[in-house]
């Protein structure tokens, strides 16, 4: 049983897979990923109490750092590339991200509107107007 015919060069790649490479290439890849991820994690933990960042911008900074770190994980740990052998994986990922975006943004948007309309206590005069 050889490993080569299972890899099937020049065709699609399984997600998380790479064309046959030396072990050194894999390890280097993971080390770069670990380095980037550590720096980004440290940066976002630092940002929480940072005096250097304007207060209201801190949540934005944390979210941007999180998205960047997810990208690092995708590229260096899951080996998602823009190469033609990865087309299917990237398309599935893109669809997944679309659903995630719709779910989260849609929920926050709709529930935010509902909150806005239901939480404000109605003034008494307005309530009396409605009863007329």
């Amino acid at each position, binding site marked *: 049983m*050889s490993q080569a*015919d299972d890899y*099937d060069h020049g065709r699609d790649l399984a997600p998380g897979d790479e*064309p046959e490479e030396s072990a050194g290439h*894999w390890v280097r890849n993971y080390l770069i*990923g670990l380095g980037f991820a550590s720096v980004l*994690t440290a940066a976002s933990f630092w940002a929480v109490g940072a005096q250097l960042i304007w207060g209201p911008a801190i949540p934005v900074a*944390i979210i941007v750092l999180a998205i960047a770190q997810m990208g690092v994980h995708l590229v260096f740990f899951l080996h998602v590339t823009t190469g033609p052998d990865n087309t299917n994986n990237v398309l599935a990922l893109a669809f997944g991200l679309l659903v995630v975006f719709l779910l989260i943004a849609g*929920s926050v948007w709709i529930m935010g509107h509902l909150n806005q309309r239901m939480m404000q206590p109605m003034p008494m005069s307005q309530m009396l107007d409605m009863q007329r």
Partner: protein
Amino acid sequence: MSDTTYTTSREALRRRQQDPHRVGHTGHPKNEPVPGTGQGASGPATKRIIVGYGFWVFLLSDIVIFSAFFAAYAVLQGQTAGGPGARDIVELPRTAWETGALLLSSFTCGLSFAATNARNKLWTQVFFVVTGLLGLVFLGLELQEFLSLAARGVTPQRSAFLSAFFAVVGLHGLHVTVGLLWLGTMVAQLQVKGFRREIVHRIICFNLFWHALDIVWVGLFSVVYLLGAVR
């Protein structure tokens, strides 16, 4: 080519020379279709690709489930019913240790896959065990957090916010627990059966699962813990 030797094929070398950073848009003329990528023109894909892709689709749907829990958390964040808010229950040092443990375990999991590709059983098993131990550290810290919160009367039934908090963090913890059980069976299967093709396919799937869990944790510690501490 036997299972134990590891040779770099000519095709892989060609790829490396033409496209060292795997950007992907070089190496073939524009007018020529790329043979066999994404169009099924070259016949059915190998089992390795089918298994990996199928698991990839499962993982994406799993992430959709997580996003529903995230959405619930985002919506219910302010509904504390007079109880403790995110600021009162978050302890950043513990979160930092959890993050470090999970990130390192993701890294060692990757190293085990590198060893798998080099068909080195000893190092695959060593990195599997290290991955498992780091996962256990993470789970232990999370369990300790939940228990200490419960001791203070901070339980899911206290408020809508706490229900959402325990649901989303607990769901991730549940995934890590399942992943650790899976890792245990992988160690046993590899020891008994060796690098048989289907075992390697399962190892690929486990790697995808473990890395995906780390990506979800990035969202968790950023949104729940760090943003909770800021607000």
